[in-house]
């Protein structure tokens, strides 16, 4: 369960998150939609522990554990995963090497044994097959020279391997062609369990046809302004965000 309570965040003196509050239950898929620049990525970065932000007040609890103040890698080991809007390139580090190092680092944090190499290879291969990632891509430096869509798939592959208890997907659909969108959505769906929750950030209803959300939230100017079921996404597709922006301005 992810609970964000009255979170106020600014960067460079500018307020981005405004008393932001949101709860995602175990096994729930919550979608956040909202205009550009409203603070969706900021929210995901703050939850994941990126340093640039000033957290003025609020709480972020993952399965009851306060995340604020923990290092990003500690949060990851506690089960938090963020699929980046723009995954980074890591030169000189073979994807396979990176994946194994990350998995073992998390296991070590949790006091678990290292994964055996055959076990690891098997899991990577399975997840890779499911996501249409060719084995030779795993030998290349992580994300270096990957296409936009390949980077997104690679992030989902990492999520599949790391088996987090909560996943945030920040515009995972952007840059994916329609076939890739289906593959990625199926990849995410196969990870849905009664325990694992997701926060899916997107601009397009289309993704939510494949990853069907339990709840849809509209975010504007740093807070949730409306919450509904999956039909809300359809409505937004028609009307856009004008109403919410006006409401805020008023």
């Amino acid at each position, binding site marked *: 369960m992810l609970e964000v309570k009255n979170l106020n965040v600014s960067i460079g003196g500018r307020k981005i998150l405004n008393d932001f509050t949101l709860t995602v239950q175990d096994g729930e898929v919550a979608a956040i939609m909202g205009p550009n620049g409203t603070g969706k990525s900021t929210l995901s970065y703050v939850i994941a*522990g990126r340093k640039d932000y000033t957290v003025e007040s609020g709480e972020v609890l993952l399965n009851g554990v306060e995340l604020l103040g923990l290092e990003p890698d500690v949060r990851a080991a506690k089960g938090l995963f963020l699929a980046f809007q723009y995954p980074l390139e890591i030169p*000189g580090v073979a994807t396979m090497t990176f994946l194994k*190092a990350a*998995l073992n680092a998390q296991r070590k944090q949790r006091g678990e044994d290292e994964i055996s190499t055959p076990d690891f290879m098997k899991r990577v291969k399975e997840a890779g097959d499911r996501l249409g990632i060719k084995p030779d891509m795993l030998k290349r430096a992580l994300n270096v020279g990957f296409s936009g869509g390949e980077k997104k798939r690679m992030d989902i592959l990492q999520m599949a391997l*790391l088996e987090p208890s909560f996943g945030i997907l920040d515009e995972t659909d952007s840059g994916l062609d329609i076939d890739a969108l289906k593959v990625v959505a199926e990849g995410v769906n196969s990870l849905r369990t009664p325990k694992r929750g997701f926060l899916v950030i997107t601009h397009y209803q289309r993704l939510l046809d494949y990853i069907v959300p339990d709840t849809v939230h509209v975010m504007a100017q740093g807070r949730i302004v409306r919450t509904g079921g999956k039909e809300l996404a359809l409505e937004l597709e028609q009307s856009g965000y004008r109403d919410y922006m006006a409401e805020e301005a008023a």
Partner: protein
Amino acid sequence: MAAVQETVDRVKSIDVSEYKYGFFSDIEADKAPKGLSEDIVRFISAKKNEPAWLTEWRLEAYRRWLTMREPSWARVNFPPVDYQDLYYYSAPKTAAGPKSLDEVDPELLKVYEKLGIPLKEQEILAGVQNPDVPERKIAVDAVFDSVSVVTTFKEELSKAGVVFCPISEAVHTHPELVRKYLGSVVPTTDNYYATLNSAVFSDGSFVYIPPGVRCPMELSTYFRINEQNTGQFERTLIIADKGAYVSYLEGCTAPKRDENQLHAAVVELIAHEDAEIKYSTVQNWYPGDADGKGGIYNFVTKRGECRGDNSKISWTQVETGSAITWKYPSCVLRGDNSRGEFYSIAISNGHQQVDSGTKMIHLGKNTTSRVISKGISAGKSQNTYRGQISAHRKATGARNFTNCDSLLIGNSCGAHTVPYIESKNPSTQFEHEATTSKISEDQLFYCQQRGLSAEEATALIVNGFVRDVLQQLPMEFAVEAQKLIAISLEGSVG
């Protein structure tokens, strides 16, 4: 992967800013009076019972040195060194010519134990009983301050005809070899520090591999500066006769001190026809503290001459220590078809200043050289690669390939590349490639999000960056080097 994990564990186990080898050992020392003069030069020579020709050789160098000035072209800054405020000779008192390990001061043995350098032959054997590397032996010459304290595996080596001993001993046991080769690659007039070294050199290793012999094990020297205000001036001379092969590794450490300690070594390599010398260095002198106080000034002249046709010399270095490094291991490619190689990882962190690189001097026909340099700068350090590739007018068909990559960690460090290329022969082909990359906060955050700590992530990226060079090191040392890299980059992130 296992190695990466080990690196990371090692980093974790060490307190930030702790230089692991920074202990000082309380061993009684036999010192020359402070300062430098003809009398001191004579004193050193007399201590070693040297023949008259060598005393004269030293004195000539000393007189020459008096007329020289410190070079100032390197991109390093430091207050003037007071050469009269140093000790030029310091020997552990009990180490006057131990015949076997049993005679070596146990305190001294403890020092080397702390450093992780096995000196007991049976321990060395036990330590490397690794199924992948059956019977891998390493002979060690341990140099403590100015004196070589022990050399292992002497007997086994001498059966193969290999001479491996302190140079002070070789002067007596193989005078004709020493006299023939000493100063034949780095003349006493070469440069300020080399000339100083020629006048006051204390000890170092001597290696001679007879014709056609492949040295049966790795040879290794460990240098340790212990005494305060002591300059260390070792002198290494390695000769591979026709068709011979040797792989040699040098390692160094020093205690933490507030004052800067001077280290001005000279290494000369001579490869005759069809011979090959592989010289590796894992240098881990004390780099100074977080504020830039203390640390070793490492002003070293290393040069190899491929004297015979088809000979080969390769330098591999992992430089992580020293406050200042001024070092350009070079190859003079005199024989036709001879080959020179230089593989370097130079890491600077904190306030370290590194000005290092190589010279490949192509004199013979169809000579080839290859230079792979990986510079990593972190903290407030400055890291300069300086490389000279030149071809004489007779060096028809000479070829060089240089690849010089820099990696920056953080925003306060600098990387510089200064290539000099000159060719007096139109048929030469010299290629130079250079790149600079940076580890950004965003990259580190991405790695951390996946569960790696900032240190682990940096180690992973750095290991990827230096892989080509690490592969050149003998296996055991590659692991050691990888650990050193992680340790020296500690505190560079976050």
